C-alpha cells in the first residue's frame, strides 16, 4: 500500500510495468479469456490489461499476500467499480489480519478521484467501519460531512450516516450521548438546510433524527418546534417541495391535530396572499378542507381573488380549490380532477 501512496504523491512518476518489477517475476499473468466467439470483445490499454492479467493470476491462486493487497489497490485505482477486486481485497485483509485503520488512508486516495457515487467503495467503507466499531464513528461522520459538502444530496453518504447512527446507538449509547451525537445530527441538518433549503436529503435526515433518536423525545415532543422550523422554511421559499411534505409528515396519522393547528392554515394563507398560484399552498389547503377545516374570513378573502363570491355554501370551497389547481398545475390536471371526483361528501 505504501508504494501506491508514493506513486500518488509524485505526479510525474512513471508507472513501472508489473512485468518489470522483480517482486512479481515468479508470477505468470493470465490473459482475459473471452472464449472462441466472445459476446463481448474488449480491447484494453496496456496498463489496464497487464494489471488485470496479474490480478487474475493471484485471484486464481487465491494468494492472500501483501503484494496481492497492493495489486488490488492498483486495480481499484484503474476501475473502482470492479466488485470482484473489492471482495478479494477483503479476503486478503482478513487473512493478513491487517490493521483496518490503514484502510481508512486507502479510502482517501480512491474517494478523492471523484468516485463518490460508487456503490463498492461505500460498501467497503461500511464493512471496515463495522469491524472497527465505535472508534471509526467520528471519522466516518466526518468523512460523510466532507462528501456532503461537495454534493449535499449524495444518497450513499446520507445512507452511510443513517447506518452509523443506528449502528452506533446500538453499540454504545453512552458514547454517542457523550459525543452529543443525535443533537449534533439535528444541528448538522439545520446547517445544510441553511446552505440549501431545497436539499431534500437533509429534510429526510431531519425526519429520521426526530423520529429515531431516543434522546429527543420523539415526534410528539418535537412537533411544535419542527412545525415552526418548517413553516419558516416555507415562507422563505414557497416553491420548495420538501418542507410542505415534511409538514404533512409531522402530522401523519393525526388528521385532527393537523386541522386544529393554526400554524398550518396560517402558512397556507400567508403564502397565498403573496402568490395565489402557489400549487403547494393550494394543495395543503385542499387537504385541510378535506379533513374538515372550517374556512375563516382570511381564507374567504383569498378565495375571493379567484372570483369566489363567498355567498355560496361552505361546502363548495374544496371543489373550487381543485378547479384552481387544475388551471395552475396543468401538467397534473388529471390528478387534480381525480381529487375533485374523490372529495369527501361533507365537502363537495
Amino acid at each position: 500500500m505504501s508504494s501506491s501512496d508514493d506513486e500518488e504523491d509524485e505526479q510525474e512518476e512513471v508507472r513501472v510495468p508489473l512485468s518489470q518489477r522483480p517482486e512479481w517475476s515468479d508470477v505468470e499473468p493470465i490473459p482475459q479469456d473471452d472464449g472462441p466467439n466472445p459476446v463481448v470483445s474488449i480491447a484494453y490499454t496496456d496498463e489496464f490489461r497487464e494489471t488485470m492479467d496479474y490480478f487474475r493470476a493471484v485471484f486464481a491462486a487465491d494468494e492472500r499476500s501483501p503484494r496481492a493487497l497492493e495489486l488490488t489497490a492498483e486495480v481499484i485505482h484503474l476501475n473502482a467499480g470492479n466488485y470482484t477486486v473489492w471482495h478479494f481485497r477483503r479476503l486478503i485483509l482478513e487473512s493478513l489480519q491487517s490493521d483496518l485503520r490503514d484502510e481508512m488512508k486507502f479510502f482517501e486516495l480512491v474517494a478523492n478521484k471523484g468516485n463518490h457515487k460508487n456503490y463498492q467503495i461505500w460498501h467497503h467503507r461500511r464493512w471496515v467501519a463495522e469491524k472497527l466499531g465505535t472508534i471509526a464513528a467520528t471519522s466516518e461522520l466526518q468523512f460523510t460531512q466532507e462528501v456532503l459538502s461537495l454534493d449535499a444530496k449524495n444518497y450513499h453518504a446520507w445512507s452511510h450516516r443513517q447506518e452509523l447512527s443506528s449502528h452506533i446507538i446500538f453499540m454504545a449509547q453512552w458514547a454517542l450521548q457523550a459525543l452529543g451525537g443525535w443533537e449534533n445530527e439535528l444541528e448538522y441538518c439545520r446547517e445544510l438546510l441553511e446552505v440549501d433549503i431545497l436539499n431534500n436529503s437533509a429534510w429526510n435526515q431531519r425526519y429520521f433524527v426526530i423520529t429515531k433518536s431516543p434522546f429527543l423525545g420523539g415526534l410528539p415532543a418535537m412537533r411544535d418546534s419542527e412545525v415552526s422550523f418548517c413553516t419558516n422554511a416555507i415562507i422563505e421559499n414557497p416553491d420548495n417541495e420538501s418542507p410542505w411534505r415534511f409538514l404533512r409528515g409531522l402530522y401523519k396519522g393525526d388528521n385532527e391535530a393537523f386541522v386544529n393547528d393554526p400554524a398550518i392554515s396560517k402558512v397556507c394563507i400567508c403564502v397565498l396572499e403573496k402568490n395565489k398560484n402557489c400549487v403547494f399552498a393550494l394543495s395543503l389547503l385542499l387537504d385541510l378542507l378535506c379533513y374538515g377545516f372550517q374556512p375563516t374570513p382570511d381564507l374567504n378573502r383569498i378565495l375571493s381573488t379567484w372570483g369566489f363570491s363567498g355567498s355560496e355554501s361552505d361546502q363548495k370551497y374544496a371543489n373550487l380549490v381543485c378547479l384552481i389547481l387544475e388551471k395552475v398545475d396543468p401538467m397534473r390536471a388529471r390528478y387534480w380532477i381525480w381529487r375533485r371526483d374523490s372529495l369527501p361528501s361533507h365537502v363537495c
Partner: protein
Amino acid sequence: MGELEIEKHTQFIMSVEKKKDFDSMVMEHLRMSGAYWGLTTLDLMGKLDAVNREEVVSWVLQCQHDCGGFSGNVGHDPHILYTLSAIQILALLDKLDTIDADKISAYIVGLQQEDGSFAGDEWGEIDTRFSYCAVCCLSILHRLDKIDVGKAISYVASCKNFDGGFGCTPGGESHAGQIFCCVSAFAISGALTHVDRDLLGWWLCERQVKSGGLNGRPEKLADVCYSWWVLSSLTIIERVHWIDKEKLKTFILDCQDKEHGGISDRPDDAVDVFHTFFGIAGLSLLEYPGLKPIDPAYALPVHVVDRLFFGQPH
C-alpha cells in the same frame, strides 16, 4: 415532435456488444446487466433476431458459480444483481431449461437475513434493490415460496417513509429507483396493500418537471432513467394518468442521438445502453406505437411474462 429511431438504436446496441474501447473495459464487470438492457430493448423494438442466442446463453452459463449465483462477467464473483439479470436474459430467450432452478433458489434463500432483508452477496450489503432482485428472480423460477415472503415484505414495508415513498433501508430518503424496487416487490408478492397509492402516486407525479422529464427525488434534475422507475411504479399502482404523458414522450425522444443511435440521460449528453433501455422501456409503458408492451414489475416484455405464467407459445 421527433420520432423513435428504431433502426439507429438497434445498430447502437449491436455495436456496444462489439465495442473495443475504454468505456466497455471499465464496465466489463457488469456486462450481465448490460446484456439484459440491450437484449430487452432489442426485443421491445422487435429486433431480437439480430442476436446469436446460442452464443449469449453459452456466455451467461459460463457466469454461473457453484453456489448457484451468477456474476457480472466471467472471472467475477456472484451477486444477486447479476443473478437476476441472468435469469431475465434466459427468460427473454426462452432458455430457462438450461439452468437448475433449485440451485439458484438456494443461493438466493441463503442471502435472506433474519429481519427479512436481502444481502447482495456474502459481504452483506443490505438494500431494498436486493429484496426486489430476490422476489423477481424467484418468481420467474416459480420458487417464490422458498423464501420467507412474509418477512421479506415486512422488511420492505419498514422502508416506507412519511411521504409515501421508499428508500434503500429504513429511514433512507425516498428515491424513485428504490420505490420501483419496493412497489414491484409488493406487486410480485401480491402485497400491494402496503402501498398508500394516493400519497405515493402524488409524490411520483410531482417528479415531472417543466421540461416534461422526470426526476428521482425533489429538486433534482430530470433523467431518462426515471422515465422507467417513476412510470413503472405509477403503472403498477394504476395512476400513470396523473402525469402528462405527451410531455414525457417528447422529453424521451429529445434525448435520442438521432445520428448514431442510443439515448442519453438528458438532451445532448452522451448515450449509453442503460439510458437507451430505460428510455425505450418508458416509451413502451406510454404505449408508443411500434414497441412491444413491457411488464412494469418484471421489466420484461409482456409476451415473455405471459409465457412464464400462462404457458403461451411465442
